[in-house]
């Protein structure tokens, strides 16, 4: 705890800007900047400034990992298991090693070690080769002789739950026991057959809650496996040298990968450098080093040459992560006025050979209900490992819960928005519902299936809940050089959200400069350690230390300017490229002029993220949860053709919050992305495994269906300014919350259109026609 003299009290804006702002006092560290006024009073923050790397991206100049080419660089390919479950009996790489151009071979599976010999999904790495060209490496793979013993397998979750199902893991000891997706869960849960868990959570007395209920609704909901489909495949260029290891990697977390590499290869941290100039999407799947990362580094170590390993699209679909599929059973009890008395949730989900297939915490935390019981199970199947994907858990979970709430509203004969007003304690979502309802013209919503013609329209709504995450060790350096130019440095990477741009805006605001006058250097572990680009935490974690560091540098500059202006530094302020006297703004000197007076060639400060000024709800290792959650409400308008079964989403209205919005246009872009990924999840995407072979039948981008421009609806995005006075910027994230509510909003709208509820996604034309009784239900 800081000493009293290290603290001071500041008065911050508080509340939702469009409702009316109040004030809130916070005790903050004395070396942090004063409270930032609301966006309406700021020059750069809150403005839609163009993204920093826009020009480099539209001209093709920006360097992605796939574009990195080093002298003498080799190309690697991975041999992958052709069988869903097999024991490797022997492997012979001699012929591959002799193939022209091959510089290193790496057996990965080994007959000597039963764990390494167990191959549990099609696509599991078996061996790897580095050669002078990708084609030569691919040819060498064909020369590797492997003897596999085929084992019984199961690739379908319901089958895997059965007692007689082939075990994916022989024992609890060899099966994954922890929670790989990063959110807290007990480890070493029981394993029965292929079922790990449950993770339980409960409060109150659910039995009594259901007894007290006037109505109880019950529903079962299913979600499919969704793959990330980053346009840039997973990839790395590894350069192992005697004096250290440098990797160029499409990663969401340079600092984390650096630590993994140091540990994995026994190197000190100061000999490991991770660089990512630009990354072509991640969505959760590029959070760690990954098996391909280890393979490339080991090949580079063996070959003593740089090695590039880029996965191809089929590898992406099979072994680069996915959003687990789920089955959820929800029961909700309520009084006649809508007050909830009990919620129970049982779920089974599958992340293939991995864990992390829960359905999140919507059912537990979104609505006020005194009694809750949750039991979430993971089911192992012989398929590639799942991993975090844009709001893991809560996206499939909201698909179930938000339909169950609508089903409850219908049973109670209460409008779905009115019911949510009664049971949702969040004042932010209350405002979001009001704004969204107005935009979508909720009053025109009719009774389910009321349209007469074959094309039936409907409206639906759903809500989201996500954690406001903060990475505690998030640091940033700000420099002012003698010519007045400014550099901002951190190892934080830009996943495509515009992280560098919001950092530039934050620093520009402090210095009274334009955002394009700030040079941001990120994506390199040579710079102070930045946060990961996952968990919607990059902006919340890195913009406060960026502002703090800039503010500290500014104090030095004001001292110089004060000498020139014969004024006290505290009487000066920076605006419009000048440093001015507060009481007489006609007096001042240019920012660059002040910098030219510096005694050293540059002045610099490094700042780290402090705790939220109101403290945290919970700390989890190197991260923490803010007190207030992130929300968001989305409305969908759909048209369902009851003759073809085609669902068209005509319009989506998204009302979201992320604390203080720093760049509204970039936020809008991210919300578009969340909605389109959710729409695609609701209607199209499906990883289909053939039960008889265990093979994915659509491991590409033409049979794995993604929503495209023709499926893109009209989208209205409204961003609330929600001030809490919690950090130097009070900004939080948006990427994940924007993805959670879309699929259930569409599902509720489809029900409203046709009067029949589909309880599983994707809602394909065949599924819609089957629900309407026009074709037989498929099992």
């Amino acid at each position, binding site marked *: 705890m800081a000493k009293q003299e290290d603290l001071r009290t500041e008065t911050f804006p508080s509340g939702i800007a469009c409702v009316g702002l109040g004030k809130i006092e916070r005790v903050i560290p004395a070396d942090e900047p004063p409270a930032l006024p609301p966006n309406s009073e700021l020059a750069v923050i809150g403005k839609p400034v163009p993204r920093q790397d826009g020009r480099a991206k*539209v001209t*093709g100049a920006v360097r992605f990992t796939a574009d990195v080419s080093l002298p003498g660089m080799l190309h690697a390919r991975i041999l992958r298991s052709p069988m869903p479950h097999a024991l490797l009996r022997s492997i012979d790489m001699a012929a591959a090693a002799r193939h022209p151009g091959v510089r290193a071979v790496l057996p990965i599976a080994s007959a000597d070690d039963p764990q390494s010999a167990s191959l549990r999904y099609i696509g599991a790495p078996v061996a790897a080769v580095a050669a002078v060209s990708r*084609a030569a490496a691919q040819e060498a793979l064909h020369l590797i002789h492997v003897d596999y013993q085929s084992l019984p397998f199961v690739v379908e979750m319901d089958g895997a739950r059965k007692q007689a199902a082939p075990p994916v893991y022989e024992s609890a000891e060899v099966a994954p026991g922890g929670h790989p997706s990063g959110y807290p869960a007990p480890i070493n849960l029981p394993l029965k057959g292929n079922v790990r868990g449950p993770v339980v959570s409960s409060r109150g007395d659910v039995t009594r809650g259901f007894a007290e209920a006037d109505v109880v609704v019950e529903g079962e909901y299913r979600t499919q496996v969704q793959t990330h489909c980053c*346009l840039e495949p997973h990839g790395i260029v590894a350069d192992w040298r005697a004096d250290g290891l440098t990797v160029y990697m499409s990663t969401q977390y340079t600092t984390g990968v650096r630590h993994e590499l140091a540990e994995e290869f026994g190197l000190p941290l100061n000999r490991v450098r991770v660089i990512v100039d630009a990354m*072509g999407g991640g969505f959760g799947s590029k959070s760690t080093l990954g098996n391909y990362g280890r393979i490339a580094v080991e090949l580079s170590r063996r070959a003593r040459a740089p090695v590039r390993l880029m996965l191809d699209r089929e590898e992406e679909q099979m072994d680069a992560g996915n959003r687990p599929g789920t089955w959820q059973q929800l029961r909700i009890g309520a009084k006649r006025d809508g007050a909830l008395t009990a919620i129970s949730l049982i779920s089974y989900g599958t992340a293939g050979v991995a864990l992390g297939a829960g359905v999140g915490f919507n059912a537990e935390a979104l609505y006020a209900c005194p009694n809750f019981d949750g039991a979430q199970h993971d089911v192992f199947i012989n398929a590639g490992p799942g991993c975090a994907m844009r709001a893991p858990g809560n996206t499939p979970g909201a698909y179930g819960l938000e339909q169950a709430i609508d089903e409850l509203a219908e049973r109670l004969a209460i409008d779905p928005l009115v019911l949510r007003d009664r049971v949702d304690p969040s004042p932010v979502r209350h405002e979001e519902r009001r704004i969204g309802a107005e935009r979508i013209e909720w009053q025109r919503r009719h009774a389910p299936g009321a349209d007469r013609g074959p094309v039936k329209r409907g409206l639906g709504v759903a809500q989201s809940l996500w954690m406001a995450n903060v990475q505690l060790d998030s640091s940033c350096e700000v420099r002012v050089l003698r010519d007045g130019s400014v550099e901002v440095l951190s190892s934080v990477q830009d996943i*495509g959200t515009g992280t560098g741009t919001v950092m530039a805006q934050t620093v520009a605001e402090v210095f009274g400069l334009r955002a394009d006058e700030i040079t941001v250097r990120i994506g390199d572990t040579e710079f102070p350690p930045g946060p990961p680009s996952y968990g919607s935490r990059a902006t919340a974690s890195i913009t406060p230390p960026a502002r703090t560091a800039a503010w500290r540098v500014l104090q030095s500059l004001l001292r110089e300017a004060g000498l020139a202006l014969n004024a006290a530094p505290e009487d000066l302020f920076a605006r419009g490229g000048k440093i001015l006297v507060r009481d007489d703004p006609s007096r001042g000197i240019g920012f660059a002029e002040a910098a030219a007076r510096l005694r050293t060639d540059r002045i610099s400060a490094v700042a780290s993220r402090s705790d939220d000024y109101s403290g945290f709800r919970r700390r989890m290792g190197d991260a923490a949860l803010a007190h207030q959650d992130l929300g968001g409400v989305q409305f969908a308008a759909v048209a369902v053709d009851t003759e073809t079964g085609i669902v068209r989403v005509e319009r989506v209205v998204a009302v979201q919050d992320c604390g203080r919005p720093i760049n509204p246009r970039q936020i809008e*872009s991210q919300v*578009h992305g969340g909605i389109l990924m959710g729409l695609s999840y609701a209607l199209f995407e499906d990883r289909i495994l053939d039960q008889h072979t265990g093979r994915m039948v659509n491991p590409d981008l033409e049979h794995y269906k993604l929503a495209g421009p023709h499926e893109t609806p009209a*989208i209205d995005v409204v961003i609330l300014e929600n001030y809490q006075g919690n950090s130097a910027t009070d900004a939080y994230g948006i990427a994940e919350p924007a993805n959670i509510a879309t699929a259930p909003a569409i599902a509720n709208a489809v029900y409203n259109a046709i009067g029949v509820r589909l309880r599983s996604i994707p809602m394909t034309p065949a599924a819609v026609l089957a629900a309407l009784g026009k074709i037989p239900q498929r099992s």
Partner: protein
Amino acid sequence: MINATSAIIAQAQGVESGSASAIGPQAVPITLNVNGATRTLQAEPRMTLAEALRGPLSLTGTKIACNRGACSACTVWLDGLPICSCMILAIDVGARSITTIEGLAEGDTLHPVQQAFIEHDALQCGYCTPGIVMTCAALLERTAEPNADDVRAAISGHFCRCGTYPHVIAATLAAAKAPKG
């Protein structure tokens, strides 16, 4: 999708069919006309145009994302028409002129579509962006005043996982209205 890949390939193969002697599998010298310059390189006959651009020619602005004509990330112009450069062999290009994303701007002056993409934030991660820019710029070459459906149709073969389509459409319509410079 408005993409001339298959037609161009058929045409190119027709042109080549006159020369009978087999070449390859080793690399052979070929000449490509890229962004107005004549470039000579060694290419194995199996090398696609996308690979030739990104490898020996170091024009990495053209991206490979699916490598089988499903996502259009690798779109370049062949004689002014947008094609998937992963779907044509470099050796089959012949004398046709290739324009890549690096050749779209005139010096420091961006093409109106590039400028509009920046102003409308029609990109996020940026990996699909060069391909989409090439397609939208080609649309403006053949359609002076496109509407939103024209843009949708033009880019319907492109995938953008970040979901930039709304801003891509807005940017392209704005570029069509921008004063010609």
